[in-house]
C-alpha cells in the first residue's frame, strides 16, 4: 500500500514491526524482500512519486572540501531515490576489497566477499539483469565475437559491467509496493529525529514531519536507515537529545571517512595501432535479446594492488574524438583569450608541434564550424576511476544553517590524499606500459608529469560511502557485521555508508545485496522472537 502521509492527522502514530527510512534501492529492496511475510513493514519516504523542488531543497548544504556536485544535485529525494538519476552500471566488489590492506589504514570489512555472493546472486533480478554468467566477461566476449584487450593477467584483468536499463526503483516497483499486503509506504514523511530510551541503547520511535502537513511519529520494533551516505549521518547527528554527540556517535565516527569514486576522464590518450582490439565491448553496453546489457572495463588484479600498495581502480576504454594536439589548441586558445590560465604551457606547445593532425583538425573545425575531423585518427581515451582511501578527515558534518523544519543542514568536506594521486600515477603507468608492451598503440598523458595536480574537473560517482562504516567493534566503525549500529539493539543501516572501503565497483548492487542479507536476518530474528534484539 502507498499512503500520502499528509492525509494523516496531527500526532498520529504509525506502528510496525519494521520501519524502513528511505525509499531508494536499499529501502525498496529491503521492503520487497520482507513483502509477503507476517511482518508489518512501513517504509518512510521524504518525497512523493515524483520530483518536487521544496522536497529536494532539504538536501541543500555547502561543499567545503574537494570539488563536488552541489549536495541537492548529488542525490534525489523522491520514491526511488537516487536510482532516478543513476547510470545503471552494476558491478560487484572484488574479494580484495573486503580484506584488510596493510598499506591502507582503516581498510578491511568484517565480512568477506564469499559472505555476500549468495546475496549478490539474488540482487541481479532487482536490477533487471541477466543471470547467465553475468560477470564472466571472457564467456560473453567469445559468445558475442568481440575483442578484449589481452594484458598481463598478473597485472590487469577484464571485468564485466552489467548494465541495468537502468532500473528506476520507484517507477519499477511502485505497483509491487502498492499491492503488498504487509508493506505500507508513507510518502512525504520526513524523518526528523530518532527517539531512544534513556540509555540510548534502543530506538523507541521516529519523529516525522510533512511539508505543509502534520507532525507524525512511527514506532517499530526494529528500524533500518536506508537514505544514503550523507543523509544517514545527518539524521544520526541530529538525534542528540539523549546522546549528545549524536546517535551511534560515541566514538566520533559518524560522518567521517566520506569516500566516493573519483575519475579522470580521460587520463591518457592512445593512438591505436591498426591491429589493436576494437572497443566495441568497452564503448557501450551490448545487448542480446535474451540478456541484459553488459560491457567491459579493465581493473587491477588483487596481486597488483598488493605489490603496488595502491588503491583500486578501473579503466573504461572509450574512444576519443580529440587528440592531444586538439586539446592543446583548445587550451592555448582559451588561455590566449584570457578565459583560463594555460596549464603546462611548454607541454601544450610541444603537443601542437608533435601532433599536427590534432592541430589541423582543431583549426578545421574552427573555420568550418564542423565537428567532423579532417584527418581520421584512431584515438581512444581511457577513463580512470579510482577508489578513495578511508580518510578520517573526509567528513559529512552539521552546519548552523537550517532547513524548513529547523533541522541543521550538513556540509560535505571531501578530502583526497596523496594515496589517490599515487594510485592515479601508478595505474596510468601500468596501463600505458601494457598498451605499449602489447603493441596496442602509443600513449600520451600529462598525468605522469612531476608537477601534475588534480585537473579542474575530477569526476565523481555520487557514491556516498564510509560515513557509518562497518567494523568488528565500535572503536573503528559505526555498524557491526550485521549492519546494526554498535550499542543500539534495534537500529540497522543499509547503505553505501556502511562500506569501509569501496574498491572500483559502482555500489548499488552491493547495497541491494546488503539489504537482501538484512531481510534474511530480520525474518530469521522474527521467527526466533528476537526482533527487538533483546
Amino acid at each position, binding site marked *: 500500500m502507498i499512503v500520502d502521509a499528509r492525509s494523516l492527522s496531527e500526532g498520529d502514530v504509525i506502528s510496525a514491526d519494521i520501519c524502513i527510512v528511505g525509499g531508494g534501492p536499499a529501502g525498496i529492496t529491503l521492503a520487497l524482500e520482507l513483502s509477503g511475510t507476517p511482518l508489518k513493514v512501513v517504509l518512510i519516504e521524504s518525497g512523493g512519486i515524483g520530483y518536487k523542488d521544496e522536497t529536494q531543497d532539504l538536501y541543500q548544504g555547502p561543499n567545503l572540501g574537494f570539488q563536488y556536485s552541489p549536495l541537492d544535485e548529488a542525490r534525489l529525494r523522491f520514491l526511488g531515490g537516487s536510482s532516478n538519476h543513476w547510470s545503471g552500471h552494476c558491478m560487484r566488489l572484488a574479494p580484495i576489497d573486503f580484506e584488510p590492506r596493510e598499506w591502507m589504514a582503516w581498510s578491511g570489512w568484517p565480512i568477506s566477499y564469499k559472505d555476500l555472493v549468495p546475496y549478490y546472486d539474488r540482487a541481479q533480478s532487482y536490477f533487471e539483469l541477466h543471470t547467465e554468467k553475468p560477470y564472466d566477461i571472457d564467456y560473453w566476449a567469445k559468445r558475442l565475437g568481440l575483442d578484449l584487450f589481452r594484458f598481463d593477467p598478473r597485472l590487469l584483468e577484464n571485468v564485466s559491467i552489467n548494465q541495468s536499463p537502468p532500473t528506476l526503483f520507484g517507477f519499477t516497483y511502485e505497483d509491487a509496493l502498492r499491492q503488498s499486503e504487509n508493506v505500507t509506504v508513507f510518502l512525504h514523511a520526513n524523518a526528523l529525529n530518532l527517539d531512544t530510551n534513556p540509555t540510548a541503547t534502543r530506538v523507541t520511535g521516529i519523529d516525522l514531519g510533512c511539508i505543509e502537513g502534520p507532525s507524525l511519529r512511527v514506532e517499530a520494533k526494529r528500524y533500518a536507515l536506508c537514505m544514503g551516505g550523507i543523509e544517514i549521518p545527518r539524521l544520526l547527528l541530529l538525534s542528540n537529545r539523549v546522546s549528545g554527540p549524536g546517535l551511534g556517535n560515541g566514538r566520533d565516527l559518524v560522518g567521517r571517512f566520506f569516500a566516493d569514486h573519483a575519475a579522470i576522464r580521460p587520463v591518457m590518450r592512445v593512438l591505436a595501432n591498426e591491429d589493436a582490439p576494437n572497443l566495441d565491448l568497452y564503448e557501450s553496453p551490448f545487448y542480446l535479446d535474451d540478456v541484459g546489457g553488459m560491457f567491459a572495463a579493465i581493473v587491477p588484479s588483487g596481486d597488483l594492488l598488493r605489490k603496488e600498495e595502491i588503491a583500486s581502480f578501473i579503466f573504461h576504454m572509450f574512444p576519443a574524438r580529440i587528440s592531444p594536439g586538439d586539446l592543446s589548441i583548445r587550451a592555448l586558445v582559451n588561455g590566449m583569450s584570457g578565459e583560463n590560465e594555460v596549464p603546462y604551457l611548454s607541454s601544450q606547445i610541444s603537443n601542437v608541434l*608533435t601532433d599536427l593532425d590534432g592541430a589541423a583538425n582543431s583549426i578545421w573545425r574552427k573555420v568550418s564550424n564542423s565537428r567532423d575531423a579532417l584527418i581520421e585518427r584512431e584515438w581512444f581515451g581511457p577513463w580512470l576511476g579510482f577508489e578513495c582511501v578511508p580518510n578520517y578527515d573526509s567528513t559529512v558534518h552539521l552546519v548552523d544553517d537550517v532547513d524548513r523544519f529547523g533541522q541543521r543542514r550538513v556540509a560535505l568536506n571531501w578530502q583526497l590524499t596523496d594515496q589517490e594521486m599515487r594510485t592515479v600515477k601508478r595505474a596510468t603507468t601500468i596501463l*600505458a606500459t601494457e598498451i*605499449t608492451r602489447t603493441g596496442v598503440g*602509443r600513449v600520451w598523458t600529462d598525468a*605522469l608529469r612531476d608537477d601534475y595536480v588534480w585537473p579542474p574537473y575530477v569526476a565523481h560517482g555520487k557514491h556516498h560511502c564510509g560515513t557509518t562504516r562497518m567494523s568488528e567493534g565500535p572503536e573503528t566503525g559505526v555498524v557491526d557485521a550485521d549492519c546494526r549500529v554498535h550499542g543500539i539493539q534495534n537500529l540497522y543501516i543499509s547503505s553505501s555508508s556502511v562500506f569501509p572501503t569501496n574498491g572500483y565497483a559502482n555500489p548499488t548492487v552491493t547495497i541491494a545485496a546488503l539489504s537482501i542479507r538484512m531481510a534474511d536476518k530480520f525474518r530469521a530474528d522474527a521467527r526466533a522472537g528476537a526482533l527487538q534484539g533483546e
Partner: protein
Amino acid sequence: MMNRRTLLLSAAIAPWAGLAKPLPEATCDALAEIGGAALSEGVVPADSAALRAELGLGLKDTLSDIIGELNERVASDFASGEILYVAGWMLSRTEVIICALVALDGQVVS
C-alpha cells in the same frame, strides 16, 4: 613527400613498422622536438657519441643501417619496461635515443 604526421607516425608513434623502409630525407622537427625535450629533461645524456654507442651505431652508420635491430630493441624495451616519459609520450628508451640523436645531429637520419 612525407609530412610531419607520417614521419611522426612512422618513427615516433607506430615506429618500427614504418622504419622497415629507409627513413626519408625529411625535416625531423617532430622527432627533434621530442628529442629536445628528452635532452632538456635529462632523460638521456646530451652526448651524441654515447647515444650512438648505446644504439650500436658506428661513427659513419645511419639508422637505416640497423633498422632490423632497432625493431627488436624497441620491442625488447617495451617488454622489459625500458619505457621513458617524454613530452607526454610513453616511448621506448631506444626511440628516445633516436629522437635525441635527431635533435643533436639531424643527419643521423639519412
